[in-house]
C-alpha cells in the first residue's frame, strides 16, 4: 500500500512540475522573446487582424491569388487532408475536378503546365503556400480582374517567392496571404 501511495505522490508531483510549472515558465519566456510568433504570427493591417502568416486562407474571388484545395475548406478550427488513396477512384475524380476548375478560372493556361500542388489537397488543409509556378499561372487572371498591368502583378509574385535556403534546403514557395496583401497594397496605390 505504501508503494501505491508513493507512486501516486510521485505522479502528482511530476504532473505539477511538467504539466503546469514548465509550460507556464516557457509561455512567459516565449512571449517575452518572441511575442509575435508566440501568439500565432497574426498579421495586422491598420490595426485589424487579417489572418495568420502561417495559416492558409480561403480565396475564391478572381481578383485574388488562390491557394491549394483544402479538405477542411480552410476552417482553422479543424485540420486534415482528404486521405484518399491514389488507387481510390475518388482521388482521380477530385483532382480532375480541381484541374478543370483551375483551367476554367485561368483561361489560356495549358493543362500540361499545371504543377501538382495547386490541384491536390494539402495535408493540413491549411497550407499557406503554393509553388511559384502555381502563382505565375494566375498572374494573367489576377491582373485582368484588378485592371493592373501583367508585369506589375508578375513582379509582385517575383518578390514574394521564398527560395531554397542556401540553394539547398526547403522548397521554393509563395505565401498566398502575403502575396495578396502586397497585391492589395498595389491596388490601393493605384487608386490614389
Amino acid at each position, binding site marked *: 500500500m505504501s*508503494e501505491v501511495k*508513493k*507512486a501516486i*505522490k510521485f505522479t502528482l*508531483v*511530476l*504532473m505539477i512540475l*511538467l504539466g*503546469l510549472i*514548465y*509550460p507556464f515558465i*516557457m*509561455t512567459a*519566456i*516565449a512571449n517575452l*522573446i518572441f511575442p509575435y*510568433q*508566440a501568439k*500565432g*504570427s497574426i498579421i495586422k493591417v491598420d490595426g485589424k*487582424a487579417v489572418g495568420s502568416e*502561417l*495559416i492558409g*486562407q*480561403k*480565396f475564391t474571388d478572381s481578383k485574388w491569388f488562390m491557394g*491549394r484545395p483544402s479538405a477542411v475548406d480552410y*476552417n482553422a*478550427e*479543424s*485540420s486534415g*487532408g*482528404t*486521405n*484518399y488513396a*491514389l*488507387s*481510390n477512384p475518388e*482521388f*482521380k475524380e477530385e483532382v*480532375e475536378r480541381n*484541374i478543370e476548375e483551375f483551367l476554367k478560372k485561368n483561361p489560356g493556361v495549358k*493543362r*500540361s503546365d499545371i504543377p*501538382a*500542388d495547386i*490541384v*491536390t*489537397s494539402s*495535408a*493540413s488543409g*491549411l*497550407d499557406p*503556400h503554393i*509553388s511559384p509556378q502555381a502563382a505565375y499561372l494566375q498572374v494573367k487572371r489576377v491582373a485582368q480582374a484588378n485592371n493592373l498591368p501583367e508585369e506589375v502583378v508578375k513582379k509582385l509574385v517575383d518578390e514574394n517567392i521564398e527560395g*531554397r535556403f542556401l540553394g539547398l*534546403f*526547403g*522548397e521554393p*514557395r509563395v505565401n498566398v496571404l502575403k502575396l495578396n496583401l502586397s497585391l492589395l497594397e498595389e491596388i490601393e496605390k493605384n487608386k490614389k
Partner: protein
Amino acid sequence: MYSNIVLFTMILVIVLLTKPVGTYMYKIFEYKPIKLDKVFLPVENFIYKLSGINAEEEMSWEKYALSFLLVNTVMMIIGYIILRIQGFLPLNPTGVKNMESSLAFNTVISFMTNTNLQHYAGENGVTFLSQMIVIVFLMFTSAASGLATAAAIMRGLSKKTTNLGNFYADFVRITVRLLLPISMLATLILVWQGVPQTFAGKVVVDTLEGGKQTIITGPVAVLESIKHLGTNGGGFFGANSSHPFENPTWLTNMIEMLLMMLLPTSLIYTYGLMINNKRHALVLYISLFVIFIFLAVGAVYAESHPGVAYSKLHIDGTPYGNYEGKEVRFGVSQSPLFATVTTAFTTGSVDSMHDSYTPLGGAVPLILMMLNTVFGGDGAGLQNIIMYTILTVFLTGLMVGRTPEYLGRKIETKEIKLIAIAILVHPFLILFSSALTVMLKVGASSVTNPLYHGLTQVLYEFSSAAANNGSEFAGFIGNTVFMNIMTGLVMFFGRYITIILMLAVAGSMAEKIPASPSPGTFRTDNALFGAIFIAVVVIVGALTFFPAIILGPISEFLSMT
C-alpha cells in the same frame, strides 16, 4: 538530389551529436558527477522528498519491473480521470467537453506507452489543461519510462551486481537532466520559427475576402518539443506536424526529425560505454543506418515518381510528384524523409498524410513499424535492438555449433525462450488483430479506402499500435468503441510484454558469471556480425510479414501499373 542533401545533413548532425549526448546519458545512468549537479541535484532531491522516495535503494529486476508497472498504471488512471472530467476543469478556452470512456481508455494507454495514436482531433478533443497535465506530462513520463528501463537492461548486461538500479531515481534523473533541458531549448527554437505558445485560445480574424476565420492557437511549442524528443508523436492539432502551427518551416521540419533521431541513436553509444565495447555498438549503429538510408531513399523515390496515378492526369508542371496530402513547404523530398524518420524512430508524428502516399511510398513506414527495430523509440528501441542482437548471436552459435555467448555471458534456454516470446508478440498482435478486424463488420466498417489499400489501412493501424508508433493512415476511422479497445489492448501488450521480458533477460544475464572470450567466441564487433544482424532483422521481418505486405501495398502497386 535535395532530399539526399537533407538526409545526409541530418545524418551528419546526428553523428556529430551521438558521442556527446551518448556520453552525457552514460553519466546520468552511471551517477557520474557533472558540473551542473549544483542545479540538478536540488530539483531531484526536492522531487524525492515530496514523493517520499528512497533514491538509494537498489532494485532486483522484479522490483524494478513492478515499480515501472505501478507508476505507469497510476499515471494512466489519473490521466483517465482528468480526461473524463476535463470539461469541468479550468483552462478550456475552446469549450471542449468531457472525453467519452472508450476514447479516454485508448488515449491514456496511447500516451503512456509512448504510442500517441490519436483517435481524437486535438482542436476539439482535449482542453488546454489536458494538453498539458495529461498529454505533455505523459509524453515526458513515457519517454523517461522507456529510457529508465533501457538503462536497467544495460546494467544487467554489463554489471557485476545482480541489481538493476533504482527505477524512481533513473526516471527523475532522465527527466530533470536530459528531457527537460533539451525540451526547453527546442521549445524556444520552435517558437522563434513560428510555433505558438500562448493560452489565448481562439483568434478571430477578418479575411481579405470579407469573411471570418477562427484560428486556434495554444500552448503548442511545449508539446511539440517533447513530442519529438520523447519519440511520442501525438499532435496538438488533428493534422499533427503537417499543421503550420506545429511545423511552420523547412527548418522546424528538420529540427523535429533531428529531435526524433537524437536519443535513440545516442543511446547506442551509451550502450557501448555501458558494456565497455564501443566497437560492438558501432557495428549496430552502422547496420541500422544502412537499413534506414535504404528505406529513406526508397520512400523519396516513390513519392517523387508517383507513376500512372499522376501521369494519366497529364499535368507536368513543376513541382511534380505526389502532392496529395503533402504541404508545399516540405514537398516530395522532406515529407517522405519525415515519414521514414517518424517510423524508424517510432515517433508517429506526421508532416504529410501517409494514407495518400503511393503504394510503395506508404509501404516504407509500414515496413519500418513491422521491423520495429531500426533504432526505435527512446529506450524501447534499444531494447528491441538488444533482443535482435541476442537472437543473432544465438543463430550464429547454432551455425557453428557452440554455446552462444553475448558480452561474455552464455545465452541459455531461459533467455532464448524469453527473447523468442518477445519477438513473436509483435507479429502476433499485428496479424491477429488485423485478421479479426477485417472479419468482423464492426471492425471492417472503419476502412475508408477500397480494396488492397483498405487492408493496408488496417495493417497500418495495428502495426502502429503494436510498435508504439502512433502514426495512422488517417482516413481510417479509429474512434469507434471496438477500435478504441482493440488498439488500446494492442498498444498495452506491445509495450509492456516486451519491456518486462527484456528486464527478465537482463536480470537473468546479470546473475551469470562472465567468462573471458575464447578464440572460438563469435565476434560481435566486426562487419560480418553487422551483415548477419541486418540479415536476421530482414529475414525475421520478411518471414512474418511478407504475406500481409503482398496482400496490401504490393497488390495495390501492381494493380496500378
